[in-house]
């Protein structure tokens, strides 16, 4: 597929066009939820492991050995209708770390890159989403960290709702 940008020349992409969706199973039911509701600012930190070497000519060589992408959503509120906040807060109080260790698939969708009606997306399989604290002042918050797996399937989604269908690209790339 050939994805092209829907942005005008020089136009900045609005933050809402970069979408993060968590998918997990509870029993036999698969659930999905967009991440970032009531979060003002959140970025994927790629956390590259970089090794540099400068030779005797003064030329610097840089090797990126690996990346360990991670993203924090803070605040992440306990919200009515949020199955993810229910799931994670209960797991945290039970200290059930297996409930969030590698149990999530996380889709990252660039909604400004389209091919026909399809939006460019990658799926990180087996991610971990863990709450870092629970509490707050007036409203109960539970900041979360998303640890991306880099087990990546490239593809597209057909719509911007929880009911989307993810279609893998013909050639699938897997990071290491």
């Amino acid at each position, binding site marked *: 597929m050939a994805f092209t940008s829907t942005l005008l020349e020089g136009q900045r992409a609005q*933050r809402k066009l970069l979408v993060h969706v968590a998918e997990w199973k509870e029993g036999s039911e698969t659930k999905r939820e967009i991440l970032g509701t009531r979060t003002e600012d959140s970025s994927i930190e790629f956390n590259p492991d970089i090794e540099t070497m400068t030779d005797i000519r003064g030329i610097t060589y840089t090797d990126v050995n690996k990346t360990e992408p991670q993203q924090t959503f803070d605040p992440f509120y306990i919200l009515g209708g949020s199955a993810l906040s229910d799931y994670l807060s209960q797991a945290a109080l039970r200290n059930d770390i297996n409930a969030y260790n590698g149990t999530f698939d996380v889709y990252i969708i660039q909604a400004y890159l389209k091919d026909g009606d399809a939006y460019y997306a990658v799926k990180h399989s087996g991610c971990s989403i863990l709450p870092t604290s629970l509490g707050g002042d007036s409203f109960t918050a539970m900041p979360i960290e998303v640890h991306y797996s880099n087990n990546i399937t490239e593809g597209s989604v057909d719509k911007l709702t929880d009911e989307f269908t993810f279609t893998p690209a013909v050639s699938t790339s897997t990071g290491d």
Partner: protein
Amino acid sequence: MSVDKNQAMIDFLLTCPTIQRSPLFFNFAKSKEDNNQVILLSNDVKLHEPYIDGSVMKQYRFILLSYKSISLNPIVKVPGYPDENLTEIAEFQEILDWVKEQAEASNFPDFGDKCVIDSMTVLSDNPTLYDVDNNVAPPLARYSITIQLDYLDNSLKLWQN
């Protein structure tokens, strides 16, 4: 479909038993005892908090005024002779308390399915003496409370769930 928030707020206030006993006006009202008047405040867009999913936290604020007769007589501690000024402000306090009760019970105005009301706050614990209208005889006090609603506007949200 977008909802007229002013109308929604008026509809909500009209469910208050104390307000039901007296006329309610929007922005304009005659100086008459027991009239209640809603005055819409400008809700500054600079106070908007945009979130990364496209939703925006906004504020809706207004002043509720109540016209009350005044007494210039000194307070006397005689059973059966309550001070008029204290009685009048206590009546307006009932409205304030009612708004707080509704907020605590999450009983909010209906801003439509694109908006989620987070909180409804009366910005003071008691009515404030706004001013005294000396253009009418007898003069009337105007007591005020300011009410603020914080709501999440989902109308520009990209993701539909």
